C-alpha cells in the first residue's frame, strides 16, 4: 500500500521534472551565480577567480562615470517613452474606443511594429536616418529645410533622440492595444448615465475613465520602464552606443565589459546593480499605485 502511494507520487513528479531541470539549470543557477561572480575579478577564462569583496561595486559607484552616463541615457529614453509614447497610445486608444469604422484595421496596423525585432526596426531606420542618402534628409531638403539635414545617428546632438524615436515607433502600438482593452472593459452604462446627467466629455474622462483605468496605467508604465531601461537590440543595430558614449545604455555597457574587456566579475556587478535599480523602480510603482487606489 505504501509502495503504491510512493509510486503514485513519484509518477506525478515525472510531469514536472523536465521543466524544473531546465528551470534550475538555466534560470535559477545563473540568478544566484551572478551574485557570486560580482565579488570576484574573474576574466571568464582563467581557472582561478580571486575574491575581491565589494571592490567592483566601489569602482562602479565611485569611478565608472560612463556606466552612470549610460544609465542617464536609459532614463532619458524611458522618460520620453513614458510621456510621448504612452500619451500617443492613450490618445489613439480613446479615439478607437467608440463606434468607429475599421477600428480593427487600425489595431492590426498599430500592433505591426511591436511584432518586428529590434534588429530589423533598427536597420530600417538606420537607412532612413542615413546622413548622406537617407530618406529623412532627402525629405528635409525637398521641403526646404535642408539646413537641418544631418547624420542623425552619428551627430552627438541628435543621436539619442533619434534612437528614442525608433524605440517609441516600435512601442506605441503595444501600449495602445493594452490601453484599448482596458477602456473596452469599462461598462458602457456608466458613460450613458453620466451623459444623461449632462456631464461633458472631459468630466466623463476625469471622473469615470481615468479612475477605472489606473491599474492599467500602472501596468503599462511598469512594463514601459522595464522594457525601455533594458533597451539593447535597437542600439546595437543603429549606433552601437556611439557617437562617443552618447547612446550607451546599461545593457551595452555590461556586455562591452563582459565580451570586450573580459571582465566577467565586473560585468556581473553591473548586472546586479542594474537589476536592483529596476527592482526598486517597479516596487515604487506598485507602492504608488496602491496609495492611489486607496485615495
Amino acid at each position, binding site marked *: 500500500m505504501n509502495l503504491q502511494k510512493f509510486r503514485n*507520487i513519484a509518477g*506525478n*513528479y515525472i*510531469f*514536472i521534472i523536465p*521543466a524544473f531541470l531546465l*528551470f534550475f*539549470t*538555466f*534560470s*535559477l543557477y*545563473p*540568478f544566484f*551565480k*551572478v551574485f557570486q*561572480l560580482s565579488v570576484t575579478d574573474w576574466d*571568464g577564462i582563467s581557472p582561478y577567480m580571486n575574491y575581491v569583496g565589494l571592490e567592483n561595486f566601489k569602482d562602479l559607484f565611485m569611478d565608472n562615470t560612463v556606466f552612470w552616463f549610460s544609465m542617464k541615457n536609459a532614463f532619458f529614453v524611458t522618460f520620453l517613452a513614458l510621456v510621448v509614447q504612452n500619451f*500617443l497610445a492613450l490618445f*489613439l486608444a480613446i479615439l478607437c474606443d467608440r463606434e*468607429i469604422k*475599421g477600428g480593427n484595421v*487600425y489595431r*492590426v496596423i*498599430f*500592433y505591426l*511594429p511591436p511584432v*518586428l*525585432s529590434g*534588429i530589423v526596426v533598427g*536597420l*530600417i*531606420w538606420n*537607412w*532612413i536616418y542615413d546622413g548622406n*542618402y537617407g*530618406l529623412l534628409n*532627402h525629405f528635409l531638403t525637398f521641403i526646404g529645410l535642408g539646413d537641418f539635414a544631418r547624420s542623425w545617428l552619428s551627430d552627438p546632438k541628435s543621436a539619442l533622440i533619434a534612437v528614442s524615436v525608433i524605440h517609441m515607433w516600435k512601442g506605441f502600438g*503595444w501600449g495602445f*492595444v*493594452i490601453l484599448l*482593452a482596458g477602456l473596452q472593459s469599462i461598462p458602457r452604462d456608466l458613460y450613458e448615465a453620466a451623459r444623461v446627467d449632462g456631464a461633458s466629455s472631459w468630466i466623463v474622462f476625469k471622473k469615470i475613465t481615468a479612475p477605472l483605468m489606473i491599474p*492599467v496605467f500602472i501596468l*503599462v508604465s511598469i512594463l514601459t520602464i*522595464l522594457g525601455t531601461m*533594458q533597451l*539593447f*537590440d535597437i542600439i*546595437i*543595430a543603429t549606433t552601437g552606443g556611439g557617437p562617443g558614449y552618447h547612446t550607451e545604455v546599461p545593457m551595452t555597457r555590461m556586455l562591452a565589459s563582459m*565580451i570586450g574587456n573580459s571582465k*566577467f566579475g565586473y*560585468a*556581473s556587478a*553591473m*548586472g*546586479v546593480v542594474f*537589476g536592483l535599480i*529596476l*527592482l526598486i523602480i*517597479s516596487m515604487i510603482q506598485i507602492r504608488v499605485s496602491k496609495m492611489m487606489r486607496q485615495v
Partner: protein
Amino acid sequence: MSLNPVEFEDKLQVNYEKIKKGTVSVFVHIFLIAVSLSCLFPLWWAFASSLKTQQTIFNDLSLFPKAPHWENYVEAWTKADFGMYFSNSLIYTVTVVIGVILIASMAAYAFSRLQFPGKNVLFLILISTMMVPIPGSIIPLYVLLNKLHLVNTRLGYILPQINAGLALGIFLLKTFFDDLPKELEDSARIDGCGRFRVYWHIALPLARPAIAVLAIFNILAVWNEYLLAMLVLNSKNLMPLQRGLMVFQGAHVTQYPLLMAGIVITVLPVLVVYLMLQKHIIKGITAGAVKG
C-alpha cells in the same frame, strides 16, 4: 410639408448633432490614417529599397521602382547566406516552440490536476522569476553554456530559449486547465487510463486554444531573438536571421539593397503569421494584461 416650430427646432438640433459627429469622425479618421501610414511606410520603404541597385538606391526615391530588381532576392538568399540563416531560424523556432509546448503543458497539467509535496512552493518559485528582472544573469548563463560545451552549438541556443518560454507557458496553461471541467478525465481514469494517457489524449487536445496563444508568442520571441544568438553562436552556419543581418551589415556597410532584401526575408514570415493569427495575439496580450 409645414412643420410646427417645435418640431422644426428638434430636427435642426438633430441635424446639427449629426453634422458635428460626422466632422469629428472625419478628423479622427484622418489622424488614425496618418498614424497608420507612419507605421507602414518604413516597411514599404525597406521593400522598395530592396528592389533597387547599388547604383540607383542612393538617389532613386521612388516608392514603386520602375525596373524592380527581383534578382536581389536571389543574391541575398544564396550569396549573402540569408537562405541558410532562414533555415536556421526555422529550425530554432520549430524546436523551441515544440519543446515549450510539451514541457510546459506537462508541468501545467501536474500543477493543475496532480498531487505531490512541494507543489505550491515550486509553482511560486517558477512564477516569481517572471516578475523579477534579471538582466545580469545572461553572464553566468554564458559561463554555464561554456562549461557544458554548448557554446556555438544548436542545443546551446535552443535549451535556454525553451527555458525562457516555460514560466509564461506553465502559468497560461495551468490557468486554462484549472477552468476545464474534470468529468471527462475522471471517467477516463475510471476506464483504466493512466495519468500520462489522460494528459496526452484528453487534456492536451482540449487545451488547443491556449496552446495556440503560447505557440504564437514563442514563435515571435524566438524568430526575433538576438542577444543570446550574439553570445552563443559564432559560426555563420549556425546563425539565425537576426544575427545574420548584423553580420551582413558589419561586413558590407553600404550594400543597402541586399540588406533590405535580407530584412524583407526576415520580416515576411512574421508578417504572415501575424496577419493570420492577429486575433489570437491581441487576445493573448490583452488577457494577460487585464488579469495580471
